[in-house]
């Protein structure tokens, strides 16, 4: 069988299986196991299990449950409510101020969890009801929360970047540092967009009434600032120990998780119920991601074993004769298209091993490419039909927010993300400046 035919068969059967609505890991694992048997023969019935052993050797993957736990503990601890109140009081006077404050909240939450789930949980349970009660436009705020929480995978600590680091064999620390500036730029774009929209259409984000603001004394305003101390301490301790090399990556994530437990205990929220809920949710999300990684590794191993790496190189460089930049843009487009149908974790595990050697061979920086990849992931998180934040939003949104609202809400934010990708592509130094500065000292 020719290589092209196998590619076509494997990916089209994968698409069909995914469309049936079977669990994503089951669909990928089935196609992978079947292909292993058919293409490689009976002896390869062990291929799926061997992939689990490969996962066992990916030591940094331990950060996945630990950061998920940290994020959930943080959202249960009530720190988010205090933070929200802080932004509420300080930003209330501005038009659209609460939406701007929500972006600020999401940036802080992103610095304390490695995925977007905790940000979504906090956004939908703390910020969303309050924003709706204040008469904010429901489409705008739904978009704010989905886009804002997606910053969780770009701003350190990021689990997606840990996974990329393992696959691309690049240092995690450099990738994390590289994500900081683009993450803040994107957050700033979100804020500018909200500010301009609310200037032109004040009804989208009304300021707080004067009498409510007058009730808040300066003493209270200052007291509320303390809400920012705990997150700052946790992030500072965790990153400080990691940056100075005292603790390893995984140990730092354990420090962060412990910090979140202590914070919850200090806020007197550490009940047995909270512990049980966070622990169970952590297991559920960790299992979901790990089984997708497992199945995708098997798929990737079967596919790559056929010589996919060379075939893609030949196709792009010789058959189509593309320039390096055209290839890079093709890769980005393929991420966006695949990301619509495939879970982005699976996409990373299957596609990245094929692309990264090519990217390095073309003279591009793999750290910079990682950041570009994460931003396409963010787009994939919020765009239908397959997006994690969309799933979560549908599950958690109050009934007055319809599916159409959720889909409409993301349009401007996808535009901003694409703009950020273009800027990061055009100016690689935005990404590389911070890691270069840190390692060049």
């Amino acid at each position: 069988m020719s290589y092209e035919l196998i590619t076509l068969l494997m990916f089209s059967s994968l698409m069909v299986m995914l469309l049936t609505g079977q669990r994503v890991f089951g669909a990928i694992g089935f196609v992978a196991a079947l292909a292993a048997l058919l293409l490689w023969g009976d002896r390869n019935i062990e291929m799926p299990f061997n992939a689990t052993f490969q996962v066992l050797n990916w030591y940094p993957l331990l950060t996945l449950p630990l950061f998920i736990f940290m994020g959930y503990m943080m959202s249960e601890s009530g720190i988010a409510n205090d933070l929200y109140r802080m932004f509420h009081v300080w930003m209330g006077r501005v038009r659209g101020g609460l939406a701007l404050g929500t972006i600020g909240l999401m940036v802080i939450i992103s610095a304390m969890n490695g995925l977007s789930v905790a940000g979504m949980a906090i956004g939908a349970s703390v910020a969303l009801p309050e924003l709706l009660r204040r008469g904010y436009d429901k489409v705008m705020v739904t978009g704010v929360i989905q886009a804002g929480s997606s910053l969780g995978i770009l701003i350190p600590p990021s689990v997606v970047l840990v996974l990329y680091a393992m696959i691309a064999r690049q240092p995690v620390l450099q990738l994390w540092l590289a994500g900081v500036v683009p993450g803040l730029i994107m957050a700033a774009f979100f804020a500018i967009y909200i500010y301009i929209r609310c200037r032109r259409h004040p009804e989208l984000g009304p300021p707080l009434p004067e009498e409510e603001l007058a009730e808040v004394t300066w003493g209270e305003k200052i007291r509320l600032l303390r809400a920012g101390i705990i997150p700052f301490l946790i992030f500072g301790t965790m990153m400080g120990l990691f940056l100075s090399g005292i603790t390893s990556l995984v140990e730092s994530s354990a420090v962060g998780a412990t910090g979140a437990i202590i914070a919850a205990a200090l806020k007197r929220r550490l009940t047995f119920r909270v512990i049980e809920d966070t622990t169970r949710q952590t297991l559920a999300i960790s299992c979901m991601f790990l089984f997708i990684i497992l199945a995708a590794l098997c798929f990737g191993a079967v596919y790559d074993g056929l010589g996919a790496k060379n075939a893609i190189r030949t196709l792009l460089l010789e058959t189509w004769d593309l320039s390096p930049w055209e290839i890079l843009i093709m890769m980005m487009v393929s991420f966006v298209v695949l990301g619509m149908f495939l879970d982005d974790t699976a996409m990373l595990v299957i596609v990245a091993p094929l692309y990264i050697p090519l990217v390095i061979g073309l003279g591009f920086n793999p750290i910079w490419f990682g950041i570009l990849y994460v931003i396409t992931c963010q787009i994939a998180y919020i765009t239908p039909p397959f997006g994690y934040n969309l799933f979560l939003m549908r599950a958690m949104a109050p009934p007055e927010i319809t599916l159409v609202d959720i889909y409409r809400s993301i349009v401007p934010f996808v535009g901003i993300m694409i703009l950020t990708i273009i800027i990061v592509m055009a100016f690689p130094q935005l990404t590389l400046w911070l890691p270069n500065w840190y390692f060049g000292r």
Partner: protein
Amino acid sequence: MPKAARVYVRYVEAVNRVVGRIVMYLIFVMIGVMLYASFSRTVIGMPLNWAMEMGQFLLAAYYLLGGGYSLQINAHVRMDLLYGRLSPRKMAFTDTLTAFCLIFYLSTLLIGGISSTEYAITYKQVNYTSWAPLLWPIKSIMTFGIFLMLLQAIAIFFKDLARVRGEEIA
């Protein structure tokens, strides 16, 4: 549904629930091992050569033993472009059709796990590290976790089948 299927579902779900709710607390053991490792290295000045592998083993036990429970509480995402528009009964119907995919994948995992564990026991396989732990204990745990998942996947198949026939088995 026949009584045997109901009894099977009840027992398998109970076992997976108990196992899952115990192993979910392994997260605290992972945190503990990591904190102890960094404490021992930086404060006492004695690096632990087993901490990293212990962390890996704990993670493997965590998600593979917890896998059955994760299936039970429906923690796994699906592509719901078409599926999401179906009624609960039609969802159950398509699931009975595609259940064999999940069962097939888990079966290949199980076969691979058993043969890998057999190999580890026969040849007393160890990790090539300074700690050099025997690998059969962790391989047995992993294989047992996959076995529990397979049992749960079959239980879910029975539940879906019952739902298609207009019954509910808890």
